[in-house]
């Protein structure tokens, strides 16, 4: 599906890959971002903190995918496969969380736990 009419855009991984040193820089960058995340994680969570944590998460995700997984250098087809998976997953699962339940809040439609009756004796 993702590949319809795009076969001419793909070709072998002819591009030069980064040098070892560049990989180390990327890893350092990831380390720094992780540090920032941890610092933010200790703050009281409000919309801003959660927003920046999620942003940093996406940045890390993208960095690993683009550099270490070579998506930056490799065929567009691979990127399409992976993105289709990610977007479908994000789409359907966020839809569940938005429709039937609530995401980062309390679910109010449920019966409180102590009001749920104990299981009846079922002997079949």
């Amino acid at each position, binding site marked *: *599906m*993702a*590949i*319809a*009419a795009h*076969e001419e855009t793909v070709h072998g991984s002819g591009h030069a890959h980064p040098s070892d040193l560049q990989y180390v820089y990327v890893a350092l960058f990831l380390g720094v971002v992780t540090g920032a995340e941890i610092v933010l994680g200790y703050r009281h969570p409000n919309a801003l903190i959660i927003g920046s944590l999620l942003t940093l998460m996406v940045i890390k995700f993208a960095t690993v995918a683009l550099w270490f997984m070579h998506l930056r250098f490799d065929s567009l*087809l691979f990127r399409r496969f992976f993105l*289709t*998976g990610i977007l*479908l997953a994000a*789409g*359907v699962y966020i839809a*569940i969380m938005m*429709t*039937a*339940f609530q995401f980062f809040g309390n*679910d109010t439609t*449920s019966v409180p*736990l102590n009001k*749920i*009756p*104990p*299981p009846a004796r*079922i002997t*079949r």
Partner: protein
Amino acid sequence: MALTEERPLLELTAGDDEVRQPLGSFRRPTSTTGWRSWITTVDHKRIGILYGATALTFFAIGGLEALLIRAQLAQPNGQVLSPERYNQAFTMHGTTMVFLVIMPMLAAFANYLIPLQIGARDVAFPRLNALSFWIFLFGGLFLYSGAVLDQIADNGWFNYAPNSGVLYSPGHGIDFWTLGLQIAGIASLLGAVNLIVTCINMRAPGMTLMRMPIFTWMALVAQFLLLFAIPVITVALFLLMFDRLFGGNFFVVQKGADPLMWQHLFWIFGHPEVYILVLPAFGIVSEVIPVFARKPLFGYPFMVFSGIAIGFMGWGVWAHHMFASGAGPVTVAAFSLSTMFIAVPTGVKIFNWIGTLWGGKLQFTTAMCFAIALVSQFTIGGLSGVTHSISPSDWQQTDTYYIVAHFHYVLFGGSVFGIFAGFYFWWPKVFGRCLDEKIGKIHFFTWLIGFNLTFGPMHVLGLQGQPRRTATYADGMGWNLMNLLSSIGAFTIGVGFLIFIFNVVKSRNNVVTDPDPWDARTLEWATSSPPPAHNFDISPTVSSLDEWWHRKYELGDDHKLHRREHPESFTAATPPENIHLPSPSYWPLIIAAGLPFIGWGLIYSYWLAGFGGLLTFVGIYGLVLEPSVDPDAGHHGHADTHDTHEPEPAAVVAGAAEAEEDADQ
């Protein structure tokens, strides 16, 4: 079944040298005939046949279950089955028909046809392909193995929580169901990866995506749906399994779980699943109709893109199975609208088929009859679908026989009619023998009448308020006549199936001489029937859609089409000499054989699971380390520089890893 008959030798390996194994244990299979060649085969065509034969067997079983259901419901207060048995019957009927019949039948077509239609020697990973089949078979056998111990699932194919929990279903039936579907799921996932790579990477020179035959296209879309939908049901099945076997709380309401979680996960898988079941069947009839209308498919690009559109939109409509489950009005409205609009690309397909018929010169072979019947019967299913995309009317119709009627018009009138069109159409290709046309017609009309008699009245029953999944109904509800008609229809379908089996048996003597008996259009008809192991003596090059047809016909000076005297085909006078094909292997069978033991082990004793895990683990290493092409197997020459013990590339490691993953859980 004419499956084990003598077929032309697969010219695969010549020598019968005994080849040492990487693991040193036992000899590499070399036979090309007999049962051993079938259980070790990695040939996509033989695997396709195995899929088909297995699925037909399960079709008979699932059909018997359906007959039990209809016998029980033929009259009010039926006493044929106890309520318990009735629930088991409808559960296994649904599960079998979806997972063990229609899916593998379509897998049979996809396996057999895709490499031939795109001009390839085989699928991208032939050994993985064999693994998929064996895992599927053992998954199905595992699912039914519970019956030996009278542990049969009885909570419906949808298996809603919390009734599926240990508390309300204390037996092991649901465990067999859960684990069996997980095993079958591995098979589907591996198959999907394999066929996607095949379609993308194995096409013959010149076979661009927009020259791919429409069946290959629809099967490809279905494989993408499988690729992304299988993990979702895997999550649901794992959670349920952990609940039941390890005391998890995912669907335990008393611990605060929400039963709707199961429904969401199940239907996120379940709706794309509907298109997985029906899109390849659409592909089949889109191949059959042009051949017998002697016209190209009307609007090929529209057919392709509507298939892709259905594939995408299929992800946005799952909650229409849950309109009455308690979602808020905004959700209901949104999914109502998305469901209505998925009818648009489906409608495009129907009108394009009519466009193909229009102005053609229709030849009513049995395959064509089934194909046209799909157009007409599926339309009914599609239209009843529109009536309950209107969620308020779905509040009346859901969980009634109206829904049963609807999805049988989709899955029987759609998928099964399409599949049988395919059977009649490709039978000569696969076996070199024709199914008898006269008997085929009798089969067709028995089914057309039986089918409408079974499921037509169910519309009425549903609108008159008969809920589905009820083991009995009282007299005086006004449902007696329709139920009786429906049961008569079901047994008519049963008779039709016997006629088909008779036709299959009889076809042994009906050898075809022309490898292209229907004057067909696509590449698979450009080789011998049945095709040689390497498919094409000469590798095809493609320059148009419907390549084979364009090689047969040319436009003359009189603006009429003329058949060329000797169309360029892909068969050579002398067999080709430098074709390497992967050698047969025992390992796929061994890997798959471990999985049921893991299942039984998880239910009854971890020792069994350990044994199964070990078998699978060893099998994976055996498969990975075994060279795909047996170095000592004789080839006709060694023109290629491709030899010696190359370890199998890692994709197989990774693919198998996920089988292993289940082993480890």
